[in-house]
């Protein structure tokens, strides 16, 4: 697999993640304005699949990160490392949670994804608009502003990471029990009426 193929692949997947995040936001907004039973069913289904979907995205992101450093030979900069520190554990804990069906994993995954998204937002910004003064994070050997990937004129490596983190955040929000799923009371069986 050439670097060009890999970059196209990961860039399109990143945009798919972004589309997922937009869909979740739009769905939430529509449901808030005019609630419908169909959307609620969809929300519940996505909620059920949320941990597995987040695990899939975190695993592909981890694989991509390792591909770029170990196979393509790009040296990760300091900011890249901070994002890796957040993404790699997500792949493991979300994977385990997906197998166990543990939606409470959101309490552990959300902070990691939020911290990672913070770094990738800043990193995406300085790759898109390199500051003249440089950044305090990086060195001449591994400059943070080098665009190792620049697909479609705007998709950089940190932008891909940002899409991945955003998707994990969206899925972890969806992993909350849907309103009707709140375990408030056992459903009662209709008892046969004896006369």
């Amino acid at each position: 697999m050439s670097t060009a193929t890999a970059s196209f692949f990961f860039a399109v997947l990143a945009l798919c993640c972004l589309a997922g995040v937009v869909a979740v936001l739009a769905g939430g907004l529509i449901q808030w304005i005019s609630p419908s039973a169909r959307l609620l069913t969809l929300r519940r289904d996505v909620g059920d699949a949320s941990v597995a979907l987040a695990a899939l995205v975190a695993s592909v992101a981890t694989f991509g990160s390792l591909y770029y450093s170990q196979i393509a030979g790009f040296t990760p900069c300091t900011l890249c490392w901070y994002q890796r520190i957040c993404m790699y554990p997500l792949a493991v804990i979300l994977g385990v949670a997906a197998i166990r069906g543990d939606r409470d994993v959101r309490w552990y995954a959300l902070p990691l994804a939020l911290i990672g998204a913070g770094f990738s937002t800043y990193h995406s910004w300085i790759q898109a608009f390199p500051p003249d003064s440089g950044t305090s994070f990086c060195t001449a050997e591994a400059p943070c502003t080098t665009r190792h990937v620049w697909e479609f004129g705007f998709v950089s490596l940190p932008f891909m990471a940002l899409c991945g983190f955003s998707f994990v955040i969206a899925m972890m929000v969806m992993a909350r029990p849907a309103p009707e799923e709140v375990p408030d009371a056992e459903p009662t069986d209709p008892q046969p009426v004896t006369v």
Partner: protein
Amino acid sequence: MPNRPTPSPSRSERVRMAQAAATRSRTGVLVGGAVLVVLLVAGIAFIATRGSGDDAPGGGASASGGTVVPSGDLSTAAVQVNGAALPPFGKADPDPAIGSPAPVLSGQSFDGSTVKIDPADGRAKVVMFLAHWCPHCQNEVPRLTDWLETNGLPSDVELYAVSTAVAPERGNFPPGAWLRREGWPVTTMVDSEGQEAASAYGLSSFPYFVAISADGKVVSRTSGELSRPQWEALLDAARAGSSAPSGVSGAASPAG
């Protein structure tokens, strides 16, 4: 109660079990769909990038196109130098290299194809030396690429680049991949491990430019990032065969 038959599930339990099964299958569809999307995108990526490779024989890894950097990732190769080496570029004014014949360089590009820089072939030239890890080269390459996309390759001055001082551990490696990403439109030679091409031209820091007149003599040498007017002045100097003010222009990375 080993002998008692297992009680059959009540109606409500059956409904719950059916609901759970339906939920599981819908979850499966969602997750399976996501995996399918990943595989589909992989297929599209293979087809899309294979197509661009066919359209652009120069390698075509860059979305911006126009690159002539071939798809190989050779980072060093033997370089043959014919002619006397230029004195190292320094602060001396006037530059002692002005008027000296520039040596002939024969080597290879990133895919092993032959590149020959022959200053005595009757055409004016600008030869640029770049290091993949040097931040000033990383700034200069997109700036020159923009200029060349806007103005086209000059018809009366040949441009060559030499990728030198390769150091994988210093990042942005391999140089071929970097230049393809940038859509670099200049024919590029890879220097040897001993940096013979760079030494022959008296390189002392990156980026480094040598303007050569049509009669094969050095007319100007400069180092550091060039602004647009400085770049245009360098082309004019090569074209006119007369010296432009040489010296350190902008920020440069020391060699070695």
